[in-house]
Every structure is written in C-alpha cells, then in structure tokens.
C-alpha cells in the first residue's frame, strides 16, 4: 500500500509537468488547429537559457523569471515569423513547418550549449519529505506547476484579455467584429505557451538531466495527456496530464515495468484516438439554430 501511495505521489509530480506541456499544446491547438511538434524542443532550449543565466551567477528565481520572459518573447516571435503565413495552410504544410522548427530548435540547443548531459539545479533541495514519499524537488516542482496552472486558469476565466484570447480562438471572425485584434491574441497565446513550456522544462530538468533531447519523451506523455483529456479542452488536457503521470508510474511499477513507460503513453494515445478521439472531456457544443 505504501508503495502504491509513493507511486501515485510521484505520478502526480511528473503529471504536473505533463499537464503543463499538454496545456501549452492545447492552447496553440485551440487557437490555430495546429499541433506544435516543437513544443518540447522549445522548452528544452528555454531550460538551457535558464542554466546559462544561473551559471552567470544570477540567483535562481531571478533566472527563472527572466527565462520565462525571454521564452515568451521567442514564442511570440515564432508566431509572427513562421506561423502567421501558415494560418490557412493544409495540414501537411503545417506539420512540415513544425517538424522543421523542431529540427532547428533542437540543433540550436546542441549548437549553442553542446550535447553533453548537464545537471540542472533545484531550488527545493532533494531531501525526502513526508516520510520519504516524495522528494523536496518533486514537492516544490509540483507546487510551482500547480500555481502556474491556477494562474493561467484565472487569467483565462477572469480577465478581459483572457476572454479576448478565448474568443479569438473559438470564433476569430466574430472576435474581429467586436474589435479584438485576433493576430495579436495568437501571438500572445504562443508567448504564453512558450513560457509555460519553459517552466515545465526547468522543473523537470533536475530529475532527468539536461540534454538537447530532454523533452522528447515528455512531449509524448503530454500528447497522451492532451488527447486523453480532449485536445480542445485546456482543463481536460491538464487533468489528462496528471492522469497520464499517475498511470505511467503505477503501470511502470506494477504492470509493464519501467522499460516500457513510453509504450504505455503510445497505447494511451492509440486507445483514445481509436475509442474516443474527442477525449474524455472534449466538449461537444450542441447548437440549436
């Protein structure tokens, strides 16, 4: 029983990372109906920026904030330069551009910061907490991501800008007619997604160590989470991310063994896509016209 509790807690801890990345994916999907295959690589690159800042001697939390800000700007720039012309492109073109972006960002990580595996500091320490059920870093990282997720939720629910972003995502034509700058909202969404990804990267790096391919597997879990919850439903994607974390840990410990964790994510993806492509919480709007 204690084993199970331990697995559930570390499942929630890693699930919080998947939830963040899944949220970033869904935000972009909702607004553009594109899947950002480069989301993981962008987060990795951001994490390198953080490490560079920390190595300059900048205190951790200042580096943290700076990294989020820089990532936000990079995300907006990518939207402006690459995605704007792709707005109505066929799926193949958009997939091509995102894969190209993945390759370029991955190469940049290797080019600027080399391919050796690096340690990444944690501000929370690694002492066991709560009688050894969870490490200090796991607890801290989960706390940080929960705060971020809550902040994002409140932003979208209760601010005018958040409402404008949702309106632009749901119905760009009508959004323009009420005076919303839809292009600006998309850029903002990309910035937010990049910022959220950066936080996920900084929180997972102390656990898995930093190298240019760090987020490859995590992106897969995030896909699984996003699909499980519903790829057009941010709340669903977040819950899906947590669920995948717990399933992954329990499954890895008791069913398939740790060597097949990624395959477990693949199985979830295929299962959702075949059984219920809209996801468990994917909303279907009934319109009576």
């Amino acid at each position, binding site marked *: 029983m204690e084993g199970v509790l331990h697995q559930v807690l570390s499942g929630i801890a890693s699930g919080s990372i998947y939830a963040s990345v899944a949220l970033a994916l869904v935000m972009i999907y909702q607004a553009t*109906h*594109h*899947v950002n*295959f480069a989301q993981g690589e962008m987060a990795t690159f951001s994490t390198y920026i953080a490490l560079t800042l920390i190595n300059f001697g900048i205190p951790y939390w200042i580096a943290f904030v700076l990294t989020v800000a820089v990532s936000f700007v990079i995300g907006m720039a990518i939207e402006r330069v*690459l995605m704007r*012309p*792709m707005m109505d*492109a066929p*799926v*193949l*073109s958009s*997939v*091509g*551009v995102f*894969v*190209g*972006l*993945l*390759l*370029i*960002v*991955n*190469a*940049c*990580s*290797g*080019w600027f910061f080399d*391919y050796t595996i690096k340690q990444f500091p944690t501000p929370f320490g690694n002492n066991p907490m709560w009688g050894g059920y969870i490490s200090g870093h796991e607890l801290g990282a989960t706390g940080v991501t929960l705060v971020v997720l809550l902040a994002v939720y409140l932003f979208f629910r209760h601010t005018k800008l958040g409402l404008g972003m949702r309106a632009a995502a*749901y*119905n*760009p*034509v*009508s959004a323009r007619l009420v005076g919303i700058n839809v292009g600006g909202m998309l850029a903002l969404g990309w910035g937010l997604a990049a910022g959220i990804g950066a936080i996920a990267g900084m929180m997972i790096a102390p656990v898995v160590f930093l190298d240019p391919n760090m987020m*490859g*597997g995590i*992106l*897969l879990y995030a*896909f*699984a989470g996003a*699909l499980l919850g519903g790829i057009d439903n941010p709340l669903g994607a977040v819950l899906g991310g947590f669920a995948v974390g717990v399933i992954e840990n329990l499954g890895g410990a008791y069913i398939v*063994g740790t*060597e*097949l*964790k*990624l*395959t477990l*994510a*693949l199985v979830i*993806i*295929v299962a959702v*896509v*075949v059984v219920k*492509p809209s996801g468990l919480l994917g909303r279907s*709007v009934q*319109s009576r*016209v």
Partner: protein
Amino acid sequence: MQNERAMHGATGVKEPLSGGASFASPVSDVVAAESEATPFLPPGDSGSPADLETTARGSLGRGVWVIAAAVVVAAAVPALFFNGYHLFQLTMMVIYAIAILGLALLTGFNGQISLGHGAFYAIGAYTTAILMANWDVPYWATLPVAAVSCGIVGFLIGLPALRLGGLYLALTTFSLSVAIPQLLKYKLVSDWTGGVQGLVLDKPDAPFGLPMSGDQWLYLFTLGVGVVLFILAWNIVHGRVGRAMMAIRDHALAAEAMGINISMLKTRTFAVSAMFTGVAGALSAIAVQFVAPDSFGIFVSIFLFVGLVVGGVASIGGTILGALFVQFVPNLADSVSKAAPGAVYGALLIAVMFLMPEGAGGLILSLWRRVRR
C-alpha cells in the same frame, strides 16, 4: 469554428455569388485532382484535363522512361569505379530512396501523413537482422519476410489510422516512432533483438563467384531491388489504384461517390507503404551490418519526412532527389558542426513549405516541361 462554418453555409445558401469561395472550391478541387493525377505536371499548367492526360501518357511518359533507363545504367556505373565507403554511401542513398518512396505512396499520393515511418524501417531492419543472426537465413531470403511483416504491421496501424484526421495520424505515428527504440530494447524480446547491444551481421559476398567485392555486389543488389520497387510504385500510381488513391487524397467525398472503397484502399496503401519502407530497412541492416535500438529513434522518421518533402511529396522521381539530400547533406554539414545537419534540414523543410510546396522534384519537372515545349 462551428459557428464560422454555419456562417459560410448560410452565405452559400443566401448569396451564391458572394459565397464564391465555397462554390468555386469544389470545381478547382476537381481540376487539381485531374492535374495531379499525373504527378509530373505542375498544377496550374494550362490545357484541359484531357490534354494533360495524353501528354502524361504519351510523350512525357516515354521521355521519363528513357531517362529512367539511363539513370539506372548510369547508377550501375559507380559499382565499377568506387569501392569501400563511397560505394556504401551510394548504397545507403538507394536505400533511403526506397524508404522515402514508401512514404511518398502514403503521404504524397494518398494524403495520409506519417511521421513514424522510421518504425517500419526499424521493423524491416530487425526482421532481417534477427533472421540472419539467429537462424542463419541468407540475406536475400530475409527481404520478403521483412516486407510481409512490415505489410502486416502497416495494415494493423492503418486500421486505426482510418478514423484519424490528418493531424491525429501525424501525432500518433510521431508517438510510435518516439516509442519504438524502447520496444526494441524490451527484455522479453532481447534474446532475439540483442537488447541495447543490438545485433552484428556478416557482410554478404558476391554470389556465383562474380569478380567483385562484397560492397560492389551489395550496391548492385540494392540497386536491383530499388529498380523493381520503383517500377512497381510507378505502375501503382499510374494505374487505376493510383488514381483512386489520389482521388481520396484530393476529395474523399467525391471518391466515395465514385464508388471507391475508401477504408479498404487506405489500409492497403498503408500496408504497401510500410512494405516499401520495411524492405529499405532490411537492406540497411545488411548494408550497415549492424542494428541497435537507438539508431531507430524519431530522427529516422523525421529524416524520411524531410527527404519526402524536399523531393516533392507526390513525385516518384523526387524521392531520389530526397534520398540524395538525406544521404549527402548531413555529411557536408557535419563538417561544420554536429548540430548543422539538423539546422539545415529544418531550415530547408520550412523553406520548401513556404517557397516550393511541390518540392525540388516538382520544380525540376516543371522546368523540364517548359524546356520540352
């Protein structure tokens, strides 16, 4: 989204003229479908569909065959002059061309986007390696087995793929290729696959006492397999089946109305596509004499995709250009930096998407047609 569609729908009903977009598009789709039924014609080329048809079948068709024959003869020549590493590179290029050809059948001609063909490449390679290393099966006899096993897996993956729109399929196949190395390492199969260590194979010698080195023989053997597969693909694409494949890609509803069994054809295309790429993987195992899980990660799939896009997604000849690119650009770029190949691939991929969506193959062929006028 729904709302927007409702708006457009309403426009179409209320004002046929103002709904120009929705009314014109089916027409232009049909034109596009017809012109793309002959993939060597750039869309937007003038002339009626019937006109395009005869050109493709007649003069252009013959011209292409002559060129193809010349290319095959020219391709065999290096076997006489090169040896060792350079010949190995050429062998790999032919292998990539076959792998990309498989992807082209699926993505280019049938419109199903796969970011996971590295998985079939891996399955083909491992089938051959396991048969050769564990049961001493001769290398040539492993190819049909690899083809069949990949065909079966391809068919099975093609089944759920039926229900997936373009993006979901891309996402699922992407996930497949991320997960595949882990599957190959799995301890229950490691007795066969050699686990993390992989399997080492012997290089085949030239048969019948032919006076050539193993490398030279392997190159010619690979080239021979490649020629057979290219002719096969050419016939598929230019036959009735190919027309149906492209009809599904361009206008699924119209294709269904024409009596095409969409799901049957899509799963079969998936199977055939996987067979092609699987045979390429099998050949690569023989040529490299080694398989290991980590050489079949997501990047194999991505490189195949890059090769496909660079050559032109719906162009059989373009796959050779794509293979040339995938094989030799990294070598050139690698001398600059370890990161350079990825950067070059990525930049090129984006550039192609923006500047010439028909790929290099499409570009060259439209130039070729202009010259022939």
